[in-house]
C-alpha cells in the first residue's frame, strides 16, 4: 500500500497518469453509444457548476443556494448571443463575464452581513430568476424557452454531433478544473481557507474576509456562467425550468456528496448530479427528491468529507484493525475519528 502511494507521489508518475486519462477521455467517445456520450457531456457541464459552488462553499465556507441561477444566466446569454449571430468567442466570454458581474453585485450586498446572509440571500436567486426569465420574454423567449443550435460538429472534423459536443465540453471543463486547482493551491486559496476557518484570525493577518468572500462568490458565479455555456453546447435549449429552485438544492447536495473543499470531489459531484437522478427516475420518479434528501443527510452523518474521502476512511479502518489487535479490542469512539477526518479533509484540499 505504502509503495503504491510513494510511487504516486513522484511527478513523472502523476504526469503519466494524467496523460493516460487524457488519452482515454479522447478516444472513448469514438467507440461509445450516443446516449453514453451525452451523459458524459452532461457530467462535464455540471461538474463545472459544482466546481464553482465548491470555491465559494467548500473552500470559503459560505453556503450558497443560488448556483443554478448563474448557470441559467450563462445559458440565456449564450442563447441570446447565438440568436444574434455573435462570434462564438465573444459569446463564451459574455456567458462567463455577465454572470460574474451579477455575482459581484449580489455579493457586495450579501457578504455585508456575516454568518448565513449569503445563504439567505442566494436562496432567493432561483426563486426570482424563474419569473424574471418568464417576464423578460424578448430576451429569453418566455416560458417556452429558447433554443440555439450552434454546437453541431463542423464538417472538417468528420465527427458526429454528440462527439463534437463531448470534446468541446471536456476541453473547457478540463481548463476550468486546472484553473480552479491552481487557484485553491495558491495565495488566494489559502486566504479563502483562513476566511472559512476563522474570520477574526483572517482579519488579524490582514486578509479582509469581506473582500475574499466577494471574490470567491464572483468566481463561483463565473464558473456557473461557464457551465451555462457548456449546458447550451450540450442541450442547445434553455427555459426558465433550467434554473428551478430544486436544481440549485441538487447542485449543493452534489457538492457535499462529492466532497466539499476538494477538486476531485467536484468531479464526483458532477457524476452524482447526473447519474443518481437517472437511476432513481428509472425506478420511480416520485422517490427522486426523497432519495436525494436521504443520501445527503446520510453522507453528512457517515462521511462528512464526501465520497472523495472514502478511500482515506477505508484505509484508516484497515490501519486501525491491523494496529489495534495488540491493544484493547474495544472499538474507538467516534469523536476522535471525525476530528481526524476534518483535519485531513483540510489538508487534502
Amino acid at each position: 500500500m505504502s509503495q503504491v502511494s510513494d510511487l504516486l507521489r513522484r511527478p513523472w508518475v502523476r504526469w503519466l497518469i494524467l496523460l493516460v486519462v487524457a488519452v482515454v477521455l479522447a478516444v472513448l467517445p469514438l467507440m461509445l453509444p450516443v446516449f453514453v456520450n451525452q451523459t458524459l457531456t452532461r457530467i462535464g457541464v455540471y461538474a463545472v457548476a459544482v466546481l464553482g459552488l465548491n470555491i465559494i462553499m467548500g473552500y470559503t465556507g459560505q453556503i450558497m443556494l443560488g448556483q443554478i441561477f448563474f448557470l441559467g444566466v450563462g445559458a440565456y446569454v449564450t442563447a441570446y448571443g447565438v440568436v444574434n449571430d455573435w462570434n462564438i468567442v465573444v459569446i463564451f466570454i459574455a456567458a462567463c463575464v455577465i454572470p460574474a458581474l451579477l455575482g459581484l453585485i449580489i455579493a457586495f450586498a450579501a457578504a455585508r452581513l456575516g454568518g448565513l446572509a449569503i445563504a439567505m440571500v442566494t436562496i432567493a436567486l432561483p426563486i426570482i430568476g424563474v419569473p424574471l426569465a418568464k417576464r423578460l420574454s424578448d430576451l429569453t423567449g418566455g416560458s417556452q424557452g429558447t433554443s440555439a443550435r450552434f454546437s453541431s460538429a463542423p464538417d472538417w472534423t468528420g465527427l458526429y454531433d454528440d462527439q463534437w459536443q463531448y470534446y468541446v465540453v471536456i476541453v473547457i471543463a478540463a481548463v476550468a478544473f486546472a484553473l480552479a486547482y491552481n487557484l485553491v493551491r495558491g495565495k488566494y486559496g489559502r486566504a479563502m481557507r483562513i476566511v472559512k476557518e476563522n474570520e477574526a484570525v483572517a482579519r488579524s493577518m490582514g486578509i479582509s474576509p469581506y473582500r475574499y468572500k466577494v471574490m470567491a462568490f464572483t468566481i463561483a458565479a463565473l464558473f456557473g456562467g461557464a457551465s451555462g455555456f457548456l449546458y447550451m453546447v450540450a442541450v442547445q435549449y434553455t427555459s426558465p425550468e433550467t434554473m428551478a429552485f430544486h436544481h440549485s438544492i441538487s447542485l449543493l447536495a452534489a457538492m457535499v456528496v462529492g466532497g466539499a473543499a476538494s477538486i476531485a470531489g467536484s468531479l464526483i459531484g458532477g457524476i452524482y448530479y447526473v447519474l443518481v437522478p437517472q437511476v432513481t427516475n428509472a425506478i420511480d420518479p416520485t422517490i427522486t427528491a426523497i432519495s436525494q434528501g436521504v443520501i445527503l443527510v446520510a453522507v453528512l452523518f457517515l462521511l462528512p468529507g464526501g465520497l472523495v474521502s472514502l478511500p482515506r476512511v477505508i484505509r484508516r479502518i484497515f490501519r486501525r484493525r491491523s494496529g489495534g489487535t495488540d491493544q484493547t479490542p474495544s472499538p474507538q469512539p467516534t469523536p476522535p475519528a471525525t476530528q481526524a477526518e476534518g483535519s485531513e479533509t483540510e489538508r487534502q484540499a
Partner: protein
Amino acid sequence: MGTFIQLVVDGLSTGSIYAALALAIVLVNQSTGLINFAQGAMAVFSAYIAYVFVGWGVPTILAILISLIISFVIGAVVERLLIRRFEGGDPDTAVVVTIGLLTLFTGICGWLWGYNNRQFPSLFPLDTINVFGAVISVRSLGTIAVLVAIMLLLQLLFIGTKLGLALRAVSFNPTSAALSGLPVGRLLMVGWGLAAALGAVAGALVAPQLTLTPTMMDTALVYALAAVIIGGLNSPIGAVVAAWGIGVLENLGAVYVPFIGHDLKIAVPFIILFVVLLLRPQGLFGRKVVVRV
C-alpha cells in the same frame, strides 16, 4: 382609496403568514444559532397532516390543532436525532443538514401525496365586509388576528412562564444555563418543537390560498428569510414588522408599479433587502453581534 385599503389589508394578511414562518426561523436561530432552511418544508408536511385528518372527517380547526401537536413532536424529534449531532460543531454543516431536511421533507410529501395540487379547506368563511368603501375579506382579517394571537401567546410564554425563562437562558448562554441545572438538550427540543408548530400554523393558513403542493412554501420561505434579515436575526418583533412591510409593499408594488406585476412581486422584498444590507447590515431592528476570539 378603497382599493388601497384592500391592498394594505391583504398585504398584512399575507405578511402575517410570512411572519409566522419568520418567527419560527428566529426561534430556532435564537436557541441553536442555525437557520433552519427546512422550516417551510416542515410546515408543508404539517399542512399535509392536517389535510389527512380533514379527509377523515375531522373538523378543520381540530385537524389543524392535531397537526400542531404532531408538528411539535416532529420538530423535537428532528432536533434530537439529526441536529443534535451537529450542534457545537461547524455551524455550516448543521445548516447543510437543514437543507438536506428541506429536500427530505419535500420528497416525503411528494412520495406520500404526489405532486398534484390538493384543495385545503379554509379556516375562515369566504365572506367579505365593507369598511369605508373597501371590500375586505374575512379571511385576511382572520389571518392577521391569528398572527397577533400567536405573538401575544409567545410573549406570554417567554416573559411570563418559567419555561420561557429557561428557553431564554439557553439561547442567551447555553453553557451557563447547563451549569445552573437547566436541561439544555430538552429545552432545545422544545424550541425546535415550538418552531415547527409555528410553521404548521403558517402552513395551515397558506394552504387554502395556494392549494396544497409539496413545494408550496418555497416562496414563503424566501419571504420569511428576507423578513428575518431585514428585521434583524435576533429580533422577533423586527421580523414580524418586516414581514408585514414586505406583504404590504409587494401588494402595492404589484398593482401600482406596472413593470413588477403579480408575477415579479417576489423581487420586491429582495430589492428592499438589498438596500437594507447595504445601509444597515445588522437589520433594521437587530443588534450587532460581537464575536470574541
